[in-house]
């Protein structure tokens, strides 16, 4: 947590993530899917400041982003998992900071984050099967339950996951390298 303690103002840059998510232009989307901005911020931060700082800020970031969306599905579990994964990589940062490594880490991270969302939607959208003897035909109460259905997740979900993963992986070498460079310049005691 060196960077967070020495330069706490740098951590405020995470406020930009929800703002950029809101302002994503349509030309920066792939098949309608926007880049996964939380991944593009958390990856360089975890590489720069380690696991504990990344876990703390993943929680804050998750709370901020969840406030933008209705419903109970949360980004926090996925971001915490990513912080746990990427934090220990700080020790091997010079090798990790290569563009290809950043791209691959962003690829895996975005896929993992999207999978945690899909699992949550599946859990919330699970509907009990009709018992024997129930009347055939649609049950309006079950139809009215909001959320992703299994059918929607299997048709639209993979398409969305692939598009967002690919786009984020392509942007990661550019965005993450830029952020690491900015933070390095802002902190004179950087131990790169």
């Amino acid at each position, binding site marked *: 947590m060196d960077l967070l303690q020495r330069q706490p103002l740098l951590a405020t840059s995470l406020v930009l993530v929800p703002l950029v*998510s809101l302002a994503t232009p349509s030309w920066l989307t792939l098949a309608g*899917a926007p880049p996964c901005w939380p991944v593009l911020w958390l990856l360089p931060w975890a590489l720069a400041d380690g696991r504990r700082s990344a876990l703390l800020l993943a929680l804050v970031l998750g709370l901020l982003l969840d406030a933008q969306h209705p419903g109970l599905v949360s980004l926090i579990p996925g971001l915490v998992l990513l912080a746990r994964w990427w934090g220990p990589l700080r020790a091997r940062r010079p090798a990790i900071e290569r563009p290809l490594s950043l791209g691959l880490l962003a690829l895996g991270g975005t896929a993992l984050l*999207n999978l945690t969302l899909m699992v949550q939607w599946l859990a919330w959208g699970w509907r009990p099967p009709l018992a024997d003897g129930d009347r055939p035909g649609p049950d309006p109460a079950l*139809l009215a339950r*909001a959320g*992703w*259905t299994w059918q929607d997740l299997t048709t639209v*979900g993979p398409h969305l996951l692939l598009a967002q993963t690919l786009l984020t992986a392509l942007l990661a070498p550019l965005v993450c390298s830029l952020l690491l460079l900015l933070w390095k310049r802002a902190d004179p005691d950087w131990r790169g």
Partner: protein
Amino acid sequence: MSVPWRRAPFSRGRRRRWPLLLTLILLLLIVRLSKGALLNDAYALLSLPFWPGPAQSEWLRSARSVEDQARLQALASDNDRLRQLLALQRSNADKAVSAPVISRQSGGWWQQLVIGKGALAGVRAGQPVVGPGGLIGLVASVTPATATITLLTDPSSRVGVWVNRSRNQGLLSGSGSARPLLRFLDKDPEARPGDLVVTSPASTLVPPNLPVGVIQAVDANADPAPVAVVQLIAPVQAIDWVQVLRP
């Protein structure tokens, strides 16, 4: 001798007048039975230059228009009163709040818009939002200056609709793609591609008869009931201004 000489011309004249007399009687009968049709028509033709000018006709048309408007208002207020009694949503386009779209997330896991009017402008959660062409979604949450709209394409969106032609009810469910699904409540919805889908008068969430979309394809064999793919009328990707309908 004098009598035949005098009677002969008289008889010939009478015989000549008989057809004329019969024709006249027939004509009068026709006039009588047709309620003066020929007479009136002749009178109309002759008096045409003296008919009243178009001003009075305009007055009549204007009076008819005022009468229609008054009747429409009476029917609308009657309809509102009845819908209130049934606890259904009322349509009131006069109280709509226009708002600019300041953020558009229509392709991710959450399909929503953020608009630049919020609680300070009278926007409340649950209010329907329309764009050019029809309904686009419902207000999910509000802040003092903004409101988040859950689009009809979002998987958490459920709106009661019916097919305008066949009056079959269904539930429009967002599926994460650009085209929501219309899940019918009947086994035989009598819907076909091209049918207009509007909000249901039985809905407690949205005002009745707002245009929503057009049926693109129908899967009649879907389980447990037929499903239709609906193309929304309002182009969400291109909308810059929307209207929030207040009750």
